[in-house]
């Protein structure tokens, strides 16, 4: 999409390869971080944050290419991307709010009931070895109300 052949600033050499490379690397790092975040994090808002991060990484790449080819088209597309990201943010946050209203928590793993019936629920009951509790608990003076234990609620961490 060749918008115009109006040259950009003559101070910076158009088509400078090292600049392109560096900018693409930055964009790729941002994109990768966002991808890993979506796949790994369980908090819905953080997942959405990671998606936005992916979009920003793409925007950086687009700007880099636009600068390299001397074509405004890339940067115009970035404006489009930002606009769409804003609308998408509105929709996604409504969705997150509804999800929270339904289950009372922001955990993506709370929505597992759509799995196959022969599979067990994926739980993180197993605490990591570093969090293993010592054999003996410190003896404290009794204070307050004992916490209620057991039940399905305890199978998931309440707050992430």
């Amino acid at each position, binding site marked *: 999409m060749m918008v115009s052949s109006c040259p950009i600033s003559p101070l910076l050499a158009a088509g400078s390869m090292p600049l392109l490379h560096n900018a693409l690397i930055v964009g790729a790092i941002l994109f990768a971080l966002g*991808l890993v975040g*979506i*796949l*790994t994090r*369980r908090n819905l808002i953080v*997942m959405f944050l990671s998606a936005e991060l992916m979009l920003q990484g793409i925007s950086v790449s687009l700007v880099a290419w636009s600068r390299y080819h001397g074509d405004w088209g890339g940067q115009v597309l970035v404006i489009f991307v930002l606009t769409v990201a804003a609308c998408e943010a509105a929709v996604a946050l409504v969705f997150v709010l509804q999800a929270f209203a339904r289950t009372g928590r922001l955990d*993506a*793993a709370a*929505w*597992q*009931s*759509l*799995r*196959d019936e*022969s*599979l067990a*629920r*994926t739980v993180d009951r197993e605490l990591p070895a570093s969090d293993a509790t010592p054999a003996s608990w410190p003896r404290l003076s009794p204070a307050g109300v004992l916490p209620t234990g057991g039940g399905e609620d305890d199978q998931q961490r309440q707050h992430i």
Partner: protein
Amino acid sequence: MQSISPTSLLVLVPLLPLVGAILTIILGRVLGSRAHLPAIAGIAAAAAAAVTLLLATAGQVGGTSGGHTEPVRPVEMISTLWQWASVDAAYTPPAGSPAAIPGTAVGGQGDARAFSIPVALRLDPLTATMLTIITCVGLLVAIYSVGYMHDDPGYPRFFALVSLFVFSMAMLVAASNFLIVYVFWEAVGACSYLLIGFWFRKPEAARAAKKAFLVNRIGDFGLAIATFLLWMTYGTLDFHDTLSADGTILPGILGQTRLADVSGIVGGTVGTAICLLLLLAACGKSAQLPLHVWLPDAMEGPTPASALIHAATMVTAGIYLITRASPLFVACPGALTMVSIVGATTALVAALIATVQNDLKRVLAYSTISQLGYMFASLGTGTMLGFTAAIFHLVTHAFFKALLFLGAGSVMHAMGGVIDMRRFGGLRRIMPITAATFLIGGLALAGVAPFAGFFSKDEILATIHAKAWPNAHETHHEVAPAGGHAAASQSPFLPVSHRRTTAIGADSGGTTLDALDRPAIWQTLYWMALLTAGLTAFYTFRAIFMTFTGPTRVPDEAGHHAHESPPVMTLPLILLAVPSALAGWWLFSTNWLAHFLSATPSLAAPAVARTAVPHAFHVDLAIQGTLAAAIGIVIAAIGHLGRRSDSPQMERLLGPLQTLFANKFYFDQIYSGLIVKPLEAVAMLAALIDRHLIDGLVNAVALIPVGLGGIVRRMQSGLVQRYALAGVMGVLMIVLALAWQLRG
């Protein structure tokens, strides 16, 4: 009706009952209790047309010739309605065979014959007689049914079926093509099935209908194979001669062109095979051994249906077929003797079984089988007297057997559905008209002079006697009778060069069956026929005495029904009693029927006509027959007359024989063991294979997606991030593939 031509009348005879049937089917429910009107109107009009045709044909045949036989000119009228099927150049017959077109060059282009089936009706004396019987007896049965089926919920259906049956039977006897005959052969079988199973919710009736249809099918198989053989042998299936496009005559199988030529009919192995298959078909339809098992069970149907179908008309289709094909049979003496052997054996066995039956309708059913056996025995003698005597007996039997059946229906109606003779007695005081007409019918059946059965039975005995003792009759007649082998060549009708009746056709010479045509066999058959005559009188009068004489007893089911039947039922009884009493004497003394029938093209053929003998009354045979009948009546009276009618029966004196007769010679058990049980085993095996093997295969194939899905299903964990991961992996693979493409 001078304005209606015989051709139109011939078409109207089957057409009007068909229209009546269709109207009854459409309007039945609307008409309600008047649903009998279209059917009776149709059959009545058809009866009027049939009688008119009979008189017209009689006028064409001319007057009777008294006691002297003369060759009679054949009388026939063909009416072709439309061409049903036609295939050009279907079959190239070998040169010189009966199927080749006469007058064409051997091996030329025009030798291929076309396969054409015209829907053609043929009117000749035999057809006219059969049509009159069918429509008149059908009309009387229909009138009777108005009273008998009065309260039945299936009232319109019954009349539609009766009307449909009259149509089918009329077309059967009028058709002039073997394939059309086969179509209506099946049609009457289907109507019989529907009428036997009329009360289809009763399991015995449904089973009886199924049995009748299946046993008939075995006969139909014979007719089908015979039709194929006839087509291959003669190149056509028409009875009559047809004109081809270029003016040559294509001889029909039973047309005048072929019959006039003595060598036109094929004998030998092929001819005997055709005749035996036709005999099989006739056995199925006319309930002869061993295909007789359906007729006693067919009594589950309504009594008027039994009277019409299983006494007067459908079961006579076999007799009609053999009479129509008489030139074919005369060319094969072995097959003729088989016909007689089957007939006489059936007559005797059925008469023996009838002596111990307690169900009035079953007695009449076995009596029908026995009398049909008589007709077959007469047909098998192969002489003009034999054929005309069989038709004579058919006519008289139609009247008195229909009378007997309708009388039994009247008794059954009055006794509230009970037909076991041991449960009622002395009914002549309650039902005088039924008793009187039943007695007339019984006297006719037993062959007591001067009732109808006496004369027809006398003629049958005479023709068998003539075959058994050929020399005894030379003193009776001016001309030596010429049965199968012409020993004396004094008759002016025999050709000078003494020839056998087998044709010089494709296979000349006789078959091994011809060895049966010996006087010793015929003498055995004669004594069997005489014994059967005595047994007939016995069981008939046993039934009459048990039912109508003795102290008056009425079963509880009768309720308030135990009175004489209404006039709509007794009027047909009286109308049938008149010909039962008088027809025999009248037809015999004037010899009208024999002379009339001898003008049928099948019977006017020289091969058959030269066996004709002058009409005479054989006093010695009449004495023998009457003596046998008298002995039978006396024994029945000793056992069952009057006070003894409700006492334990004398048949117990028979001892173990009584069990044999009462179990119908174990025919049903033999069939069950030999045929039904093995077939059921095969059916169960097939069901097992179907359920486990074939369905198992299909189910196994269905398990493949289930298995595959089970593997893939594990990926569905419910965690959104794992799904996203799968998508990312997919994108990664595409990117790698693209990169590989670009690199490489």
